[in-house]
């Protein structure tokens, strides 16, 4: 598969602050790629450098083979960016704003049909003639997504698109973005909602302090770091203390729950036997698989 976005040893320094410190990532065409990391990890800087809003201190970035600095016009034609902030032009309504944006990309009247189609698909038809100022936060977010799509870019980048968006709209947006991905668009997403990334992304890169701490397909990452956990709610007769026999098994205590990390499946027998012998009753029992959040926490903590 051909490369849609390529970062080659990219660095961005603000004085002593190393916002991005030597990142290399290749995102293939047609991928749904997640860029994950805590605040200040460098996600938005990565996107801003791709968009040409920020100039890299070192390294090379290209979109669909076009260098974002040398061939910036071609590179910008190839990418649609949904910014994180809810920005809008207060002088215009939704349809006008979309037509202007298409015009900046050299699209004339022949593109109006596509603009109307995006308006419809993003449920903005009723608001198409409404001034941007009058829209709710969710509607503004949809208008921003529409704006990134007006020039039919092969690559779409969404910087925290569901921040502050209610559950229903979030689901609708993701259904729409999934359809775009199925239609062949490469999608890059930054999000704080790791469950979203787990559900949507084929591959993810996890960033911390301007560096990649892990990068792989979502499946591989989960497999690599997968652990089974046994989560128990216990009824202690006397003092709240685990029997010595099972206390050595790694576990976490949260409120009433004891979560044991299982190295092998026979650990379950050892735990239940140990509890039975100590006359500690099991009130509730669950098994929990590793999710992306666990992998993320594990990796970022390990690198601290």
């Amino acid at each position: 598969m051909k490369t849609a976005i390529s970062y080659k040893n990219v660095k961005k320094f603000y004085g002593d602050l190393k916002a991005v410190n030597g990142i290399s990532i290749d995102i293939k065409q047609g991928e749904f790629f997640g860029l994950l990391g805590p605040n200040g990890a460098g996600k938005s800087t990565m996107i801003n450098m791709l968009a040409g809003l920020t100039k890299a201190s070192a390294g090379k970035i290209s979109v669909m083979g076009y260098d974002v600095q040398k061939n910036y016009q071609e590179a910008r034609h190839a990418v649609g960016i949904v910014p994180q902030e809810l920005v809008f032009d207060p002088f215009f309504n939704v349809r006008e704003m979309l037509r202007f944006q298409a015009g900046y990309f050299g699209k004339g009247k022949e593109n109006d049909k596509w603009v109307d189609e995006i308006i419809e698909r993003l449920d903005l038809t009723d608001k198409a003639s409404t001034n941007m100022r009058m829209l709710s936060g969710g509607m503004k977010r949809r208008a921003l997504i529409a704006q990134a799509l007006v020039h039919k870019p092969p690559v779409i980048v969404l910087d925290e698109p569901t921040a502050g968006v209610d559950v229903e709209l979030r689901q609708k947006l993701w259904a729409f973005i999934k359809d775009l991905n199925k239609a062949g668009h490469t999608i890059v997403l930054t999000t704080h909602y790791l469950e979203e990334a787990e559900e949507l992304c084929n591959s993810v890169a996890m960033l911390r302090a301007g560096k990649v701490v892990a990068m792989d397909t979502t499946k591989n990452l989960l497999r690599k770091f997968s652990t089974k956990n046994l989560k128990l709610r216990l009824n202690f007769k006397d003092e709240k203390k685990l029997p010595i026999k099972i206390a050595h098994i790694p576990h976490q205590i949260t409120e009433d729950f004891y979560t044991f990390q299982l190295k092998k499946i026979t650990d379950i027998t050892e735990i239940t036997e140990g509890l039975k012998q100590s006359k500690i009753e099991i009130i509730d029992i669950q098994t929990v698989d590793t999710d992306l959040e666990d992998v993320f926490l594990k990796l970022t903590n390990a690198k601290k």
Partner: protein
Amino acid sequence: MVTLKTQLIGTWTLIKKELIRFWRVAFQTVAAPVITGMLYLVVFSHVLQDRLEIYEGVSYTSFLIPGLIMMSLLQNAFANSSSSLIQSKVMGNIVFILLSPLSYIQFFIAFIVGAIVRGLFVGLAIYFLAIIFIDLPIHHPWIVFWFALFGGGLLGAFGIIAGIWADRFDQMAAFGNFVIMPLSFLSGVFYSIHSLPTIWQNISQLNPFFYMIDGFRFGFFGQSDVSPYLSLLIVFLFFITLSFAAIQMLKSGFKLRT
């Protein structure tokens, strides 16, 4: 992908956006400065009409009108590009232009055209209102045109510089109050510099607004304080210099791209 056609459509779209932007609030951007210009005209002509005759055979009111037209044109050309930029920066919607493939030259052209057109709208409105009451023939229409064009362009370029440099509305207001206003009031709109003491005449000749007003007025009366061709050359050189500075700022991404 990127062709001459897409570049032309891109530039025209940004020009159109700039024009519609000020036209949507025409009451503030066109009507208000026209009323201010007409008030200057009424007040000054009423007080000074019978007391001053600056050029032979030209009434003071007639003398005043070209200066007021040009002053309003210049102030509004500056206001258009500078306010558009500072508003987009503060609101954050400048990102839509920065994310587009528009080049710094296209950006510059669109903002300059927007500035010139708004300046011309205000200037023409004052002219058409004034000639209802005063007979004001234009002796050299092309001279009037070139001064209006380069004057508007010069202040449009200056507006781009100010709009990029300023981070807040109060910084922008300081530009208007401490640079544009004094330079335009001390440029000979209301008087001929020959009526000033020698030292002030010399100081006035350092003010580019003086050449814009004086040359523009020559187009109406065929009389001026200095040669209109010298004025046109100076205005053109200022236009080129400020345009170069504005283009360099846009090219480098100064305060726009980090």
